[in-house]
Protein backbone atom coordinates (compact mmCIF):
# COMPACT_ATOMS: atom_id res chain seq x y z
CA UNK A 1 0.00 0.00 0.00
CA UNK A 2 1.56 3.21 -1.11
CA UNK A 3 0.87 6.18 1.04
CA UNK A 4 2.54 9.50 0.61
CA UNK A 5 2.30 12.44 2.88
CA UNK A 6 2.92 15.99 1.76
CA UNK A 7 3.23 18.25 4.76
CA UNK A 8 3.25 21.26 2.52
CA UNK A 9 -0.10 21.14 0.78
CA UNK A 10 -2.13 22.77 3.51
CA UNK A 11 -4.05 19.73 4.61
CA UNK A 12 -3.13 18.42 8.07
CA UNK A 13 -1.03 15.28 7.93
CA UNK A 14 -3.50 13.21 9.94
CA UNK A 15 -6.25 14.30 7.60
CA UNK A 16 -4.21 13.24 4.59
CA UNK A 17 -3.62 9.86 6.18
CA UNK A 18 -7.29 9.40 6.92
CA UNK A 19 -8.25 10.24 3.38
CA UNK A 20 -5.70 7.96 1.83
CA UNK A 21 -6.71 5.02 3.99
CA UNK A 22 -10.35 5.62 3.14
CA UNK A 23 -9.51 5.77 -0.56
CA UNK A 24 -7.57 2.57 -0.29
CA UNK A 25 -10.49 0.83 1.42
CA UNK A 26 -12.91 2.27 -1.14
CA UNK A 27 -10.78 1.06 -4.02
CA UNK A 28 -10.44 -2.35 -2.55
CA UNK A 29 -6.71 -2.06 -2.08
CA UNK A 30 -7.29 -2.61 1.62
CA UNK A 31 -9.58 -5.56 2.15
CA UNK A 32 -11.84 -5.91 5.13
CA UNK A 33 -10.05 -7.79 7.85
CA UNK A 34 -6.62 -6.86 6.48
CA UNK A 35 -4.12 -5.83 9.13
CA UNK A 36 -2.41 -2.51 8.54
CA UNK A 37 0.91 -1.47 10.09
CA UNK A 38 0.96 -0.44 13.71
CA UNK A 39 1.21 3.18 14.72
CA UNK A 40 4.91 2.82 15.26
CA UNK A 41 5.63 1.12 12.00
CA UNK A 42 3.39 3.40 10.01
CA UNK A 43 5.05 6.43 11.57
CA UNK A 44 8.47 5.10 10.66
CA UNK A 45 7.41 4.21 7.17
CA UNK A 46 5.94 7.62 6.47
CA UNK A 47 8.46 9.46 8.67
CA UNK A 48 5.79 11.35 10.51
CA UNK A 49 5.15 11.83 14.15
CA UNK A 50 3.53 8.81 15.81
CA UNK A 51 1.04 11.05 17.52
CA UNK A 52 -0.19 12.14 14.16
CA UNK A 53 -0.65 8.54 13.07
CA UNK A 54 -2.28 7.79 16.39
CA UNK A 55 -4.75 10.60 15.87
CA UNK A 56 -5.63 9.37 12.41
CA UNK A 57 -6.12 5.80 13.61
CA UNK A 58 -8.18 6.99 16.50
CA UNK A 59 -10.53 8.92 14.26
CA UNK A 60 -10.80 6.02 11.86
CA UNK A 61 -11.58 3.74 14.76
CA UNK A 62 -14.28 6.06 15.98
CA UNK A 63 -15.79 6.04 12.50
CA UNK A 64 -15.62 2.27 12.61
CA UNK A 65 -13.44 1.95 9.63
CA UNK A 66 -10.57 0.45 11.57
CA UNK A 67 -10.69 -1.75 14.61
CA UNK A 68 -8.01 -2.58 17.12
CA UNK A 69 -7.17 -6.24 17.48
CA UNK A 70 -5.68 -6.76 20.84
CA UNK A 71 -2.11 -7.89 20.48
CA UNK A 72 -2.23 -8.14 16.72
CA UNK A 73 -2.46 -4.56 15.59
CA UNK A 74 -5.13 -2.69 13.68
CA UNK A 75 -7.36 -4.14 10.98
CA UNK A 76 -9.97 -2.92 8.54
CA UNK A 77 -13.52 -3.37 9.74
CA UNK A 78 -16.06 -5.44 7.89
CA UNK A 79 -18.44 -3.23 6.05
CA UNK A 80 -15.98 -0.36 6.12
CA UNK A 81 -15.99 -0.21 2.38
CA UNK A 82 -19.41 1.20 2.07
CA UNK A 83 -18.69 4.03 4.43
CA UNK A 84 -15.43 4.77 2.72
CA UNK A 85 -17.04 4.96 -0.66
CA UNK A 86 -19.53 7.42 0.73
CA UNK A 87 -16.78 9.47 2.33
CA UNK A 88 -14.77 9.49 -0.82
CA UNK A 89 -17.71 10.75 -2.73
CA UNK A 90 -18.10 13.50 -0.21
CA UNK A 91 -14.50 14.47 -0.52
CA UNK A 92 -14.74 14.52 -4.28
CA UNK A 93 -17.87 16.62 -4.06
CA UNK A 94 -16.00 19.10 -1.91
CA UNK A 95 -13.14 19.25 -4.33
CA UNK A 96 -15.46 19.73 -7.26
CA UNK A 97 -17.22 22.51 -5.42
CA UNK A 98 -13.93 24.21 -4.68
CA UNK A 99 -12.90 24.06 -8.36
CA UNK A 100 -16.23 25.50 -9.46
CA UNK A 101 -15.94 28.26 -6.88
CA UNK A 102 -12.57 29.16 -8.16
CA UNK A 103 -13.78 29.16 -11.75
CA UNK A 104 -16.70 31.44 -10.96
CA UNK A 105 -14.57 33.76 -9.00
CA UNK A 106 -12.09 33.82 -11.80
CA UNK A 107 -14.69 35.31 -14.05
CA UNK A 108 -15.70 32.27 -16.09
CA UNK A 109 -19.34 32.53 -17.21
CA UNK A 110 -21.77 29.69 -16.75
CA UNK A 111 -22.00 28.53 -20.38
CA UNK A 112 -18.29 28.45 -20.85
CA UNK A 113 -17.96 26.51 -17.64
CA UNK A 114 -20.60 24.00 -18.65
CA UNK A 115 -18.87 23.39 -21.98
CA UNK A 116 -15.61 22.74 -20.20
CA UNK A 117 -17.30 20.45 -17.75
CA UNK A 118 -19.01 18.36 -20.46
CA UNK A 119 -15.78 18.00 -22.34
CA UNK A 120 -13.83 16.93 -19.29
CA UNK A 121 -16.55 14.50 -18.28
CA UNK A 122 -16.55 12.85 -21.71
CA UNK A 123 -12.80 12.49 -21.61
CA UNK A 124 -12.85 10.99 -18.15
CA UNK A 125 -15.51 8.42 -19.03
CA UNK A 126 -13.65 7.43 -22.16
CA UNK A 127 -10.37 6.91 -20.34
CA UNK A 128 -12.17 5.12 -17.55
CA UNK A 129 -13.67 2.70 -20.08
CA UNK A 130 -10.26 2.10 -21.54
CA UNK A 131 -8.89 1.13 -18.13
CA UNK A 132 -11.56 -1.34 -17.14
Amino acid at each position, binding site marked *: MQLSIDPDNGIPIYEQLIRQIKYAVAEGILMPGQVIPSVRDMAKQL*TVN*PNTVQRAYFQLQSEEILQSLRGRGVAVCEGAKKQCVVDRQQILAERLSAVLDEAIRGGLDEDRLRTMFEKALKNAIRSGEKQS
Partner: protein
Amino acid sequence: MSEMIRVNNVCKRFGKRTVLKNVSFQVPSGVVFALLGENGAGKSTLIKSMLGYNKLDSGNIAVCGLDPVNQPLEIRRKVGYVSDAPGLYEWMTVAQAGWYASGFYPQGFLKTYGERISDFQLPHDAKIRDLSKGMRAKVALSLAMAFDPELLILDEPTSGLDPLVRRSFLESMIDRAAAGQTVFLSSHQIQEVERVADWVAILHQGSLQIVAPLEELKSSISILDFSQRDPLLAMPAELDQVEVLHKLQVGRSFHLMVRGLTPEIVSSLSQNANLFEVKSIRPNLEELYLGFTQPFEPRLSDDGLGQLSKNAKNSEVA
Protein backbone atom coordinates in the same frame (compact mmCIF):
# COMPACT_ATOMS: atom_id res chain seq x y z
CA MET B 1 7.21 13.95 35.67
CA SER B 2 5.25 16.15 33.41
CA GLU B 3 8.01 18.25 31.94
CA MET B 4 11.38 17.06 30.80
CA ILE B 5 12.97 20.46 30.36
CA ARG B 6 12.01 23.71 31.95
CA VAL B 7 13.67 26.87 30.79
CA ASN B 8 12.87 29.85 32.93
CA ASN B 9 13.76 33.41 31.97
CA VAL B 10 17.19 32.57 30.74
CA CYS B 11 19.65 35.29 29.73
CA LYS B 12 23.14 34.68 28.47
CA ARG B 13 25.77 37.14 27.30
CA PHE B 14 29.12 36.62 25.69
CA GLY B 15 31.07 39.78 26.20
CA LYS B 16 28.89 42.60 24.97
CA ARG B 17 26.64 40.47 22.86
CA THR B 18 23.44 39.09 24.34
CA VAL B 19 22.80 35.65 22.95
CA LEU B 20 19.69 34.66 24.86
CA LYS B 21 17.13 37.15 26.04
CA ASN B 22 14.53 36.07 28.58
CA VAL B 23 13.86 32.70 27.05
CA SER B 24 11.20 30.66 28.80
CA PHE B 25 9.44 27.48 27.77
CA GLN B 26 8.72 23.97 28.90
CA VAL B 27 9.17 20.71 27.11
CA PRO B 28 6.61 18.08 28.07
CA SER B 29 7.71 14.51 28.27
CA GLY B 30 7.07 12.02 25.52
CA VAL B 31 7.04 14.53 22.67
CA VAL B 32 9.27 15.49 19.81
CA PHE B 33 10.16 19.09 20.47
CA ALA B 34 11.80 21.07 17.67
CA LEU B 35 13.74 24.25 18.15
CA LEU B 36 14.06 26.33 15.02
CA GLY B 37 16.17 29.38 14.47
CA GLU B 38 18.74 30.89 12.17
CA ASN B 39 22.47 30.45 12.61
CA GLY B 40 23.55 32.48 15.57
CA ALA B 41 20.06 32.64 17.05
CA GLY B 42 21.32 31.02 20.19
CA LYS B 43 20.10 27.46 19.72
CA SER B 44 23.45 25.84 20.41
CA THR B 45 24.03 28.08 23.37
CA LEU B 46 20.70 27.11 24.81
CA ILE B 47 21.37 23.45 24.31
CA LYS B 48 24.80 23.73 25.86
CA SER B 49 23.24 25.49 28.82
CA MET B 50 20.86 22.59 29.18
CA LEU B 51 23.81 20.26 29.46
CA GLY B 52 25.68 22.39 31.91
CA TYR B 53 28.39 23.66 29.64
CA ASN B 54 27.41 27.28 30.17
CA LYS B 55 26.69 29.23 33.25
CA LEU B 56 23.66 31.46 32.81
CA ASP B 57 23.68 35.13 33.55
CA SER B 58 20.15 34.98 34.86
CA GLY B 59 17.27 32.54 34.99
CA ASN B 60 17.48 28.83 35.48
CA ILE B 61 17.07 25.58 33.64
CA ALA B 62 15.89 22.25 34.94
CA VAL B 63 16.45 19.10 32.93
CA CYS B 64 14.68 16.02 34.25
CA GLY B 65 14.31 18.03 37.40
CA LEU B 66 18.06 18.47 37.80
CA ASP B 67 20.20 21.58 37.61
CA PRO B 68 22.72 21.17 34.80
CA VAL B 69 25.41 23.31 36.35
CA ASN B 70 25.42 21.56 39.67
CA GLN B 71 24.57 18.04 38.64
CA PRO B 72 26.11 17.54 35.23
CA LEU B 73 26.99 13.89 35.73
CA GLU B 74 23.45 12.83 36.64
CA ILE B 75 22.09 14.68 33.67
CA ARG B 76 24.55 13.00 31.36
CA ARG B 77 23.43 9.65 32.63
CA LYS B 78 19.86 10.43 31.69
CA VAL B 79 20.29 12.48 28.55
CA GLY B 80 21.68 11.35 25.24
CA TYR B 81 23.32 14.14 23.30
CA VAL B 82 24.36 14.29 19.69
CA SER B 83 26.10 17.48 18.61
CA ASP B 84 26.63 18.68 15.07
CA ALA B 85 30.32 17.82 15.22
CA PRO B 86 30.49 14.53 17.08
CA GLY B 87 34.19 14.58 17.96
CA LEU B 88 34.72 10.85 17.99
CA TYR B 89 38.19 9.37 18.26
CA GLU B 90 39.43 8.90 14.75
CA TRP B 91 41.61 5.93 15.56
CA MET B 92 38.90 3.89 17.25
CA THR B 93 36.87 1.37 15.35
CA VAL B 94 33.09 1.43 15.54
CA ALA B 95 33.17 -1.47 17.96
CA GLN B 96 35.88 0.10 20.09
CA ALA B 97 33.96 3.34 20.36
CA GLY B 98 31.00 1.46 21.74
CA TRP B 99 33.14 -0.55 24.08
CA TYR B 100 34.80 2.59 25.37
CA ALA B 101 31.54 4.41 25.96
CA SER B 102 29.97 1.40 27.64
CA GLY B 103 32.38 1.84 30.54
CA PHE B 104 30.48 4.89 31.64
CA TYR B 105 26.98 3.48 31.56
CA PRO B 106 25.27 0.55 33.22
CA GLN B 107 24.94 -2.92 31.77
CA GLY B 108 23.02 -3.35 28.58
CA PHE B 109 24.73 -0.55 26.74
CA LEU B 110 26.72 -2.82 24.50
CA LYS B 111 23.77 -4.97 23.56
CA THR B 112 21.65 -2.01 22.56
CA TYR B 113 24.60 -0.45 20.80
CA GLY B 114 25.13 -3.61 18.81
CA GLU B 115 21.49 -3.59 17.75
CA ARG B 116 21.66 0.01 16.66
CA ILE B 117 24.85 -0.61 14.72
CA SER B 118 23.30 -3.52 12.84
CA ASP B 119 20.20 -1.47 12.19
CA PHE B 120 22.32 1.18 10.63
CA GLN B 121 24.42 -1.42 8.85
CA LEU B 122 27.71 -0.02 10.04
CA PRO B 123 30.86 -2.16 9.77
CA HIS B 124 32.19 -3.15 13.18
CA ASP B 125 35.85 -2.99 12.36
CA ALA B 126 36.01 0.17 10.34
CA LYS B 127 37.96 2.99 11.91
CA ILE B 128 36.08 6.17 12.48
CA ARG B 129 38.43 8.12 10.26
CA ASP B 130 37.58 5.86 7.35
CA LEU B 131 33.86 6.42 7.70
CA SER B 132 31.88 8.90 5.69
CA LYS B 133 30.25 11.83 7.37
CA GLY B 134 26.87 10.15 7.41
CA MET B 135 28.17 6.98 8.99
CA ARG B 136 29.94 8.96 11.67
CA ALA B 137 26.70 10.70 12.50
CA LYS B 138 25.05 7.32 12.79
CA VAL B 139 27.73 6.11 15.16
CA ALA B 140 27.26 9.21 17.27
CA LEU B 141 23.52 8.64 17.34
CA SER B 142 23.94 4.99 18.26
CA LEU B 143 26.21 5.93 21.11
CA ALA B 144 23.71 8.47 22.37
CA MET B 145 20.81 6.06 22.19
CA ALA B 146 22.49 2.93 23.43
CA PHE B 147 21.77 3.56 27.09
CA ASP B 148 18.07 4.18 26.46
CA PRO B 149 17.97 7.75 27.70
CA GLU B 150 14.76 9.42 28.80
CA LEU B 151 15.68 12.47 26.84
CA LEU B 152 17.54 12.68 23.57
CA ILE B 153 18.96 16.06 22.62
CA LEU B 154 20.03 16.50 19.03
CA ASP B 155 21.82 19.64 17.92
CA GLU B 156 21.51 19.86 14.14
CA PRO B 157 22.50 16.24 13.75
CA THR B 158 21.75 15.91 10.06
CA SER B 159 23.31 19.06 8.70
CA GLY B 160 25.30 18.20 5.61
CA LEU B 161 24.12 14.61 5.43
CA ASP B 162 22.53 12.85 2.50
CA PRO B 163 18.79 12.10 2.42
CA LEU B 164 19.23 8.42 3.24
CA VAL B 165 21.06 9.18 6.45
CA ARG B 166 18.59 11.86 7.33
CA ARG B 167 15.82 9.39 6.93
CA SER B 168 17.59 6.97 9.25
CA PHE B 169 17.81 9.67 11.86
CA LEU B 170 14.16 10.52 11.47
CA GLU B 171 13.16 6.93 11.90
CA SER B 172 15.23 6.69 15.04
CA MET B 173 13.63 9.77 16.44
CA ILE B 174 10.20 8.45 15.64
CA ASP B 175 11.08 5.18 17.29
CA ARG B 176 12.00 6.89 20.49
CA ALA B 177 8.87 9.04 20.39
CA ALA B 178 6.75 6.01 19.83
CA ALA B 179 8.40 4.35 22.80
CA GLY B 180 7.40 7.28 24.94
CA GLN B 181 10.77 9.00 25.23
CA THR B 182 11.34 12.67 24.66
CA VAL B 183 13.32 14.06 21.77
CA PHE B 184 14.61 17.61 21.73
CA LEU B 185 15.73 18.55 18.27
CA SER B 186 17.40 21.64 16.94
CA SER B 187 17.36 21.77 13.20
CA HIS B 188 17.23 23.70 9.98
CA GLN B 189 15.56 21.01 7.98
CA ILE B 190 12.07 22.46 8.16
CA GLN B 191 10.42 19.79 6.04
CA GLU B 192 11.69 17.06 8.32
CA VAL B 193 10.72 18.94 11.45
CA GLU B 194 7.29 19.43 10.02
CA ARG B 195 6.78 15.70 9.71
CA VAL B 196 7.95 14.61 13.09
CA ALA B 197 7.58 17.47 15.51
CA ASP B 198 4.86 17.63 18.12
CA TRP B 199 5.94 20.96 19.51
CA VAL B 200 7.78 23.75 17.79
CA ALA B 201 9.70 26.67 19.25
CA ILE B 202 11.18 29.46 17.16
CA LEU B 203 14.18 31.35 18.41
CA HIS B 204 15.14 34.54 16.64
CA GLN B 205 18.01 36.83 17.62
CA GLY B 206 18.04 35.43 21.10
CA SER B 207 14.34 35.85 21.81
CA LEU B 208 11.70 33.18 21.72
CA GLN B 209 9.09 34.15 19.14
CA ILE B 210 6.64 31.36 19.64
CA VAL B 211 6.36 28.01 21.33
CA ALA B 212 3.32 25.86 20.73
CA PRO B 213 2.24 22.47 19.46
CA LEU B 214 2.66 22.39 15.72
CA GLU B 215 -0.88 21.38 15.02
CA GLU B 216 -2.18 24.24 17.09
CA LEU B 217 0.07 26.66 15.25
CA LYS B 218 -1.12 25.47 11.91
CA SER B 219 -4.73 25.59 12.79
CA SER B 220 -4.73 28.90 14.60
CA ILE B 221 -2.60 30.80 12.15
CA SER B 222 -3.56 31.40 8.58
CA ILE B 223 -2.03 32.89 5.51
CA LEU B 224 -4.22 35.60 4.04
CA ASP B 225 -3.54 36.75 0.51
CA PHE B 226 -5.37 39.53 -1.29
CA SER B 227 -4.81 42.30 -3.78
CA GLN B 228 -6.07 45.88 -3.80
CA ARG B 229 -7.63 47.55 -6.77
CA ASP B 230 -7.13 51.02 -5.48
CA PRO B 231 -4.10 51.44 -3.32
CA LEU B 232 -5.15 54.80 -1.99
CA LEU B 233 -8.13 53.47 -0.13
CA ALA B 234 -7.74 52.43 3.49
CA MET B 235 -7.22 48.85 4.59
CA PRO B 236 -10.42 46.93 5.26
CA ALA B 237 -11.72 47.18 8.79
CA GLU B 238 -12.00 43.41 9.23
CA LEU B 239 -8.29 43.27 9.63
CA ASP B 240 -8.66 44.88 13.03
CA GLN B 241 -10.36 41.75 14.28
CA VAL B 242 -7.37 39.59 13.67
CA GLU B 243 -3.83 39.67 14.94
CA VAL B 244 -1.46 40.40 12.08
CA LEU B 245 1.76 38.59 12.79
CA HIS B 246 3.53 39.38 9.58
CA LYS B 247 2.87 41.43 6.48
CA LEU B 248 4.54 41.33 3.12
CA GLN B 249 3.53 43.79 0.45
CA VAL B 250 4.48 43.48 -3.19
CA GLY B 251 3.01 46.38 -5.14
CA ARG B 252 -0.73 46.09 -4.58
CA SER B 253 -0.67 42.49 -3.38
CA PHE B 254 -0.61 41.61 0.28
CA HIS B 255 0.59 38.43 1.91
CA LEU B 256 -0.38 38.39 5.56
CA MET B 257 0.11 35.91 8.33
CA VAL B 258 -2.70 36.33 10.80
CA ARG B 259 -4.02 34.68 13.91
CA GLY B 260 -7.66 34.29 14.67
CA LEU B 261 -8.97 34.29 11.14
CA THR B 262 -12.49 32.93 10.86
CA PRO B 263 -14.32 31.93 7.70
CA GLU B 264 -16.73 34.77 8.29
CA ILE B 265 -13.97 37.30 8.09
CA VAL B 266 -12.70 35.69 4.94
CA SER B 267 -16.07 35.83 3.26
CA SER B 268 -16.50 39.38 4.44
CA LEU B 269 -13.22 40.30 2.89
CA SER B 270 -14.11 38.52 -0.29
CA GLN B 271 -17.11 40.73 -0.60
CA ASN B 272 -15.08 43.87 -0.20
CA ALA B 273 -15.16 45.74 -3.47
CA ASN B 274 -11.64 47.01 -3.25
CA LEU B 275 -10.13 43.60 -2.76
CA PHE B 276 -9.80 40.75 -5.17
CA GLU B 277 -8.12 37.37 -5.18
CA VAL B 278 -8.77 36.88 -1.49
CA LYS B 279 -7.39 33.57 -0.30
CA SER B 280 -6.84 31.97 3.03
CA ILE B 281 -4.57 28.98 3.31
CA ARG B 282 -3.24 26.82 6.05
CA PRO B 283 0.44 27.65 6.42
CA ASN B 284 3.22 25.18 6.24
CA LEU B 285 6.02 25.34 8.75
CA GLU B 286 8.37 27.16 6.44
CA GLU B 287 5.92 29.99 5.98
CA LEU B 288 5.33 30.10 9.69
CA TYR B 289 9.00 30.22 10.35
CA LEU B 290 9.62 32.99 7.85
CA GLY B 291 6.69 34.87 9.20
CA PHE B 292 8.02 34.80 12.72
CA THR B 293 11.55 35.63 11.82
CA GLN B 294 11.42 38.06 8.94
CA PRO B 295 11.11 41.73 9.66
CA PHE B 296 8.16 43.74 8.43
CA GLU B 297 9.49 45.21 5.22
CA PRO B 298 8.04 46.00 1.90
CA ARG B 299 10.23 44.67 -0.86
CA LEU B 300 10.12 45.67 -4.49
CA SER B 301 7.94 48.54 -5.67
CA ASP B 302 5.76 47.82 -8.66
CA ASP B 303 7.03 50.40 -11.12
CA GLY B 304 8.28 47.80 -13.55
CA LEU B 305 11.87 48.99 -13.34
CA GLY B 306 12.80 46.49 -10.68
CA GLN B 307 14.45 49.07 -8.48
CA LEU B 308 14.82 48.56 -4.80
CA SER B 309 12.96 51.13 -2.81
CA LYS B 310 13.74 50.34 0.76
CA ASN B 311 12.55 53.66 2.02
CA ALA B 312 9.19 53.48 0.31
CA LYS B 313 6.59 53.86 2.97
CA ASN B 314 3.56 52.66 1.18
CA SER B 315 0.21 52.71 2.80
CA GLU B 316 0.60 50.92 6.08
CA VAL B 317 -1.98 49.02 7.96
CA ALA B 318 -4.26 51.53 9.55
